């Protein structure tokens, strides 16, 4: 089946099987391998991308469901040549180790912080409860989210 959609602001067309997962389409057809697949059953959150600005698990969707919609992946997070405040904060707070879960956390947090510009630590932890990280124990991620929120509010 032929689908056309917008990926990171650019128009994109592709030929997919009806059964092709959105995650496989993003990684293996669109070639955007920054999105990771960690469990293929919607628990780990590594494959989180944004569809029309909302976080979705791309392993639980079919590619055809993204037809005509606007998709944003981790490759589209940096703007105007510079890293997003979340990316900078993740670096400064040591919020990543192996990095396999990182794209999912970033793509979950970005819309959360847009809707919750001044979140408490508890709200951040709840917002992240659908993303698994096996390396960091989450502290750096929670701190990075708070730091990025401040920067996004101030900037």
């Amino acid at each position: 089946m032929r689908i056309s959609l917008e990926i990171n602001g650019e128009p994109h067309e592709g030929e997919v099987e009806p059964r092709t997962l959105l995650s496989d389409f993003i990684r293996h057809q669109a070639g955007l391998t920054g999105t990771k697949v960690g469990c293929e059953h919607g628990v780990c959150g590594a494959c989180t991308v944004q569809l029309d600005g909302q976080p979705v698990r791309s392993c639980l969707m079919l590619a055809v469901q993204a037809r005509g919609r606007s998709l944003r992946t981790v490759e589209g997070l940096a703007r105007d040549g510079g890293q997003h405040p979340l990316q900078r904060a993740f670096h400064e707070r040591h919020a990543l180790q192996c990095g396999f879960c990182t794209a999912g956390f970033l793509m979950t947090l970005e819309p959360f912080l847009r809707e919750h510009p001044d979140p408490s630590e508890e709200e951040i932890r709840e917002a992240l409860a659908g993303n698994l990280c096996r390396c960091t124990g989450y502290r750096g991620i929670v701190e990075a989210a708070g730091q990025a929120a401040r920067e996004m509010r101030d900037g």
Partner: protein
Amino acid sequence: MTLVGRALPRREDALVLEGRARYLDDIDPTGGAHATFVRSPFAHARVGAVVAPGDAPGLVAVLTAESLRGRVRPLPFQVPDGVTAADEPHPILADGEVRYAGQPVAALIAESRPLAEDAAELVEVDYEPLEPVVDARAPGVDLVEFRRSGGDVERAFASAAHVVRGTYAMPRLVAAPMEPRGAIASEEDGLLTVWCSTQDSHRAVAHLAHSLDRPPESIRVIVPQVGGAFGSKGGAPAEAVAVAAAAIELGRPVKWAEDRLENFLAAYQGRGMEADVELAFDGDGRMLAVRARIRADVGAYLLQATAVPPHTAGMLMCGCYRLDAAEVEVVGRRTNRVPTGPYRGAGRPEAAYFMERAVDDAARELGIDPVELRRRNLIAEFPHTTPLGFTYDSGDFARCLDRALELVRPERSDDGERAVGTGVGLYVERAGGRFESAVAALQPGGRVLVRGSTSPHGQGHDTTFAQVAADRLGLEIADVAFEFGDSAVVPPGIGTFGSRSVAVGGAAVAEASDRLREACLAAAARVLGAEVSWDGGALVAADGRRLTLAELAEAEPGIGAEARFDSDLVFASGAYAAVVEIERAAGRMRVLRLAAVDDAGTIINPLLAEGQVLGGVAQGLGECLSEAATFDDEGQPTAANFADYSLLTAAELPPIETAFVESASPLNPLGAKGIGEGGAIGTPPAVANAVADALGHGVDPPFTEDRLWRAMRT
């Protein structure tokens, strides 16, 4: 300014944060085919005919034990000193028998992964189910045995005023790195290249050379970005050997990227040990001797390092205590479950848990405060050789304990609804040992390139080792580049596991850097015809003439140095403390706070070291709260996805205080020990002892509501 000791964020982060890092499944070789595996649905069965589909869309090849005969050998396995092991290696593909659910039986190679998975559905396998062994405590076949004693154990127990006995168990656990395993193989002009999601290239080369019966020189292993391992990606798995055999046969690249279900079924698991521990005390609460019988559920076959955790657990059963005598007996029994192997701690958490639970039980029986009982028996002088023969090089156990108690703020109460208790868990862990190497070269332009033999999978080697090398050379961190993980370029080594990268690999980097500096001084002296001294990025003669490193590299190309660093084991240690609250009506346990104090010797980068501790604590807490690899009576895994095998989330982590005590190891130039495993070792005994303090008696993890509710009613 000195770089060692500074909390620098990682310079390797940008690639990952921008989605540009290349993990195994991000690599798609041109013309590559894709592999999937047919896996046994039975825990134990005889395997008859394996009938492959004659034709299926996109199907390229089908591999079975029959078709691989004469081309592959079972995986190699390692037998630690003093261990007796049965000759039961893991076959590449099941040959006549399957011994665990998930064991690979056939490999399907097709033009795409979905087509390979479609074809796998068409394979017919003739299974004749056999009785599975599901209980490691039942009489059965022993695959691993280890016995050691030192001192007069009989006399110590005969003369003891008190003997305290207990039985303690740790469940099997799944390492569950976020990236599952995988391999891509390709052969060209007699060189087999294998990209493998593994902990280092050295062991993978050795395993592939053994199983494919070809010289290691004909194999290149490239470790791409690795999405976590925690011990579970040591060397090359059976699937990687099958993929390599397929690539050789087909003359085209073949890729296998494991999915989560396969990782739960077929990646080796950790822990799964139980111990009877006896402690002998004199009338003053002085610990005289320990006697331990450890039973390990090692699973169906011996993998490369299956025998290592039981051996390590046995050897560490003296813990942090002065003892006159010790005796351990370790038996690793075969079960029809996926084999076990190293998982973060690999025998160390088991030993610490068994010993620390036993000490708390002893304290209750003897009517002595558990902290006081520990203080009376802690080793205070180093080096200290235990009755079992390990020599602890350095430490300050009492100071770690003091710090942990200070940070955790002990608490105890019970109002009938909520019971609150505090527990401590001490540990000592073997780290380091054997050798690693490094090669440092001055490059055109004046930068230094170092190739190290250990390999990162999240720890931050690039930044940590650059801090070491730049300090030694008086350079900026940006002037030192590193390469890891490609067997075609890195020097020889053992690998990245067991908290050994900094103490051994980092020491090799330090020595290679020192030698490069000497080589640069000698070369500059030749160029300038005068004695020179080192001034950061430049070499200066007495008469004031200067040569920058860039100029030196141009005047005398090819300046380099290498170092191999050999070391005895070093022993990191620590004290953990936890406060827990148990809701009596529901059995619900909450960790209110936890303190982690680790003595890993000199800390190179406190930010990354704390990251290791916090990650280890989270895994240790997972073991306490929710994680257990469970199986039913047929040997079928009953927790083989992230819904049933539950990792902790950000919402479930309690406040954690960390601190370091830095007693430098005398055994390496950095004074380093190891920090990768402490959190996973110290957390379970601290939490378990806090639970026991709250309830008045001990329980084994995981501390689920069901288990605690029952424990309060027996």
